[in-house]
């Protein structure tokens, strides 16, 4: 028995005891054990070097109790919506009535009860993601979520949207885990949306969400993640854990609008030949927001390709973090890996930490990374202002163009317009510097 060191650990222990009874007891126990061995990560843990989760979660909030309200949700995307509210999958708020052929949707509870090995392997991915303490804690305390399987060869035209909402007005801790299994040869679009329900929602939510993706042989997934609206005292960890079989292709974009302390972790294991993944994203943060994007791409097999392009815009006293690690295992020859992270600091109080890493154990590879950090190009600004644009507008235009660099690959124009609109809105709210 490991001695409980502090208050936070004791609270998690008590929460774990209540969760133990809600299915998958053994797997939960394994996750909890893994969490106990590691503890909440602090800055001494290399992969958490710039984000101190232990300090942020010194006082864990009580587990979310669920919300029986039936709010009216505005529709942003033309999608098949699957809603989790306050840690509970809500079929009543989801579009379950007319699911296309080849699509199966279950709540996490049903999936755990089924104990289907195929789904289990998707829900409990191996590799770096499994080693992470925040993911382990999620595995121990996950309350609900939604598990979607797409049958082999199916093509789903409408995007599947995973909506994770928080509505409680008091601070609560929410643990959700969802999965998307894309069968061999299938082709899918997905949207991941996370946000708050309304203005009255607590600004001190503690959210720990994991979306596991399993892409079987020759499958295709095109996805967009949008995280926004979390309050100044919130602490959230959004993990994406992707597992790619041979020839599978994943294209992921994300827009993160900072809120409190927000950590986005992307884990990708390229576990088959010719698998390809691309991750692109824009992070916007201001005030005292802390926005961390940490990426781990594991090339396990030959001929894999991974491309990452991230842009971060920081205003006021915001702290931005980008950590990206490309690992090429022995034997993963002919890997092609490129990672790029650029940041613009709009204010002297802002901080950017970049840590792009390469870890390479195979010789016949082509890997590179680039990182840059600075302010807006004063010459460009001058050029635009000389043509009559007010300072603020000129800045916005340049910042939009900067962000757009990592969005050009979004194939769906509606998704792209949506993201650009959000960025425009964020920029409009700022006072020009």
């Amino acid at each position, binding site marked *: 028995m490991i001695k409980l060191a502090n208050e936070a650990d004791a609270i998690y222990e008590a929460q774990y005891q209540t969760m133990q009874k809600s299915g998958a007891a053994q797997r939960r126990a394994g996750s909890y054990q893994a969490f106990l061995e590691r503890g909440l990560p602090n800055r001494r843990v*290399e992969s958490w*070097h710039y984000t101190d989760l232990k300090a942020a979660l010194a006082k864990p909030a009580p587990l979310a109790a669920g919300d029986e309200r039936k709010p009216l949700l505005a529709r942003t995307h033309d999608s098949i919506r699957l809603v989790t509210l306050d840690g509970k999958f809500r079929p009543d708020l989801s579009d379950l009535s007319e699911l296309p052929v080849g699509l199966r949707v279950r709540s996490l509870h049903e999936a755990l009860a089924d104990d289907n090995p195929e789904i289990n392997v998707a829900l409990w991915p191996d590799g770096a993601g499994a080693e992470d303490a925040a993911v382990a804690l999620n595995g121990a305390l996950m309350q609900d979520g939604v598990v979607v399987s797409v049958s082999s060869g199916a093509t789903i035209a409408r995007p599947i949207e995973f909506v994770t909402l928080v509505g409680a007005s008091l601070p609560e801790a929410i643990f959700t885990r969802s999965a998307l299994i894309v069968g061999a040869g299938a082709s899918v679009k997905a949207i991941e949306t996370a946000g708050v329900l309304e203005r009255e929602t607590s600004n001190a939510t503690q959210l720990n969400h994991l979306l596991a993706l399993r892409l079987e042989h020759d499958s295709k997934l095109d996805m967009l993640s949008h995280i926004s609206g979390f309050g100044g005292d919130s602490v959230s960890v959004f993990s994406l854990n992707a597992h790619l079989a041979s020839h599978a292709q994943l294209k992921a974009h994300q827009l993160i609008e900072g809120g409190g302390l927000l950590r986005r972790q992307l884990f990708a294991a390229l576990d088959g030949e010719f698998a390809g993944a691309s991750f692109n994203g824009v992070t916007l943060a201001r005030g005292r927001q802390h926005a961390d994007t940490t990426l781990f791409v594991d090339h396990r097999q030959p001929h894999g390709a991974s491309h990452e392009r991230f842009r971060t815009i920081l205003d006021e006293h915001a702290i931005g973090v980008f950590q990206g690690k490309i690992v090429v295992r*022995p034997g993963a020859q002919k890997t092609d890996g490129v990672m790029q992270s650029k*940041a613009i*600091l*709009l*204010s*002297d109080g*802002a*901080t*950017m*930490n*970049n*840590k*792009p*890493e*390469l*870890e*390479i*154990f*195979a*010789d*016949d*590879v*082509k*890997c*590179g*990374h*680039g*990182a*840059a*950090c*600075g*302010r807006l190009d004063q010459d460009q600004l001058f050029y635009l202002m000389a043509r009559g644009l007010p300072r603020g507008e000129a800045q916005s235009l340049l910042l939009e163009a900067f962000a757009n660099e990592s969005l050009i690959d979004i194939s769906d124009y509606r998704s792209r317009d949506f993201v650009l609109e959000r960025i425009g809105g964020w920029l409009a709210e700022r006072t020009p510097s």
Partner: protein
Amino acid sequence: MMAARQETVARVEAIDVDAYKYGFTTDIESEKAPKGLGEDIVRFISAKKNEPEWLTQWRLEAYRRWLTMREPDWARVHYPPIDYQDLYYYAAPKSTPGPKTLDDVDPELLRTYEKLGIPLREQEILAGVETRKIAVDAVFDSVSVATTFKEELAKAGVIFCPISEAVQTHPELVRQYLGSVVPVTDNFFATLNSAVYSDGSFVYVPKGVRCPMELSTYFRINEQKTGQFERTLIIADAGSYVSYLEGCTAPKRDENQLHAAVVELVALDDAEIKYSTVQNWYPGDSSGRGGIYNFVTKRGDCRGRNSHISWTQVETGSAITWKYPSCILRGDNSQGEFYSIAVSNGHQQVDSGTKMIHLGRNTKSRIVSKGISAGKSQNTYRGQVSAHRRADNARNYTQCDSLLIGHDCGAHTVPYIESKNTSAQFEHEATTSKISEDQLFYAMQRGLTAEEATALIVNGFVRDVLQQLPMEFAVEAQKLISISLEGSVG
């Protein structure tokens, strides 16, 4: 170019895979402190050096601090735990009570340095045609055995002597600057060094003086089971310039030997220090037995305005390298540079890089790191660039490239780039690849063998860094790189 290449290839062919040409031992009687480490040993070393009380206390404080510290484990290197009680912390050739004139030095020692190609006799360098003069301080195990050109340097006002001598002759300078760049509490190995350092070089270049010749220190570990802990302190006063070279070798032994040095550089207003290292400690044999553990703390403090510190290193030796020559860019408009070639072969492990800490305004830094891994070696670049709130217009450019030769080696890049200032501009680029098939094909099509073609391409790969080295060193370094990679092409 062609001639140089042929020479390189000839050199490579002339030696066996395991040939480390400096692997001989010198049979010389030496005086050692008893094995192990404790306050008595610290006092013993201090007494040996006839040190003032403040320095003895300084060492003891470091020792007590060290006892509370933990060996760092964040680097990507693996080695069995070191038994710090199973080492000799002081070993000195018996016949040298202190370096006086060269005639007092044991002829066996002189022969050693001759064999290593280090000129200790001034007339040898002066004779005949004009060659560039290099003043040498030779450190053998724990003591400095000879320092050349002292008088000529003294005329220019430059102080160049063993640090143990400087403590006696210029205590005020030593006291002012020792530990001011790398504090006693800095890290496990630096703190250990502070407690037990035995000798090293001391350089002081007075205001406005351009040091008339290159200064050089040559480190040699000879004794078995000894650790070498040297301490180098270089102070460039306002408006001065000094170029300093460092070389090192050790005999082949089956055991691992510890080398934990500390180098401190201080550059005041408008001063410039150029520090070059060709590190060729014994790397261990082809099965990974033996070799030096090179755990070194090197740091330069650009304390004055417009000061400039440049580190250039060629790392080919050591079983393990743990080394991050850094610059603290404190003075406004100061500049830091780091040029590195790290070649690893066999079972070597390298974890090396730099830190550029931008504190002052308009500070600039540039990092060019080239890693080449072959055999079963692991080669990591680890670097930090940071700009603090005050560091307006800080500028950094980093390029780190890795080349992999063979299936069993690894190349890793771990940069930390931290900016707290909107006007700071940081750029970082890194690539990892193998030698391009196209380039190889092109070169071989013109009649070069695979080995020759590789040597040519590798030389091109490291060229940016070699150009930063003083001439004599550049030639030596180029040969060294070819030798280190011997046996890795195939």
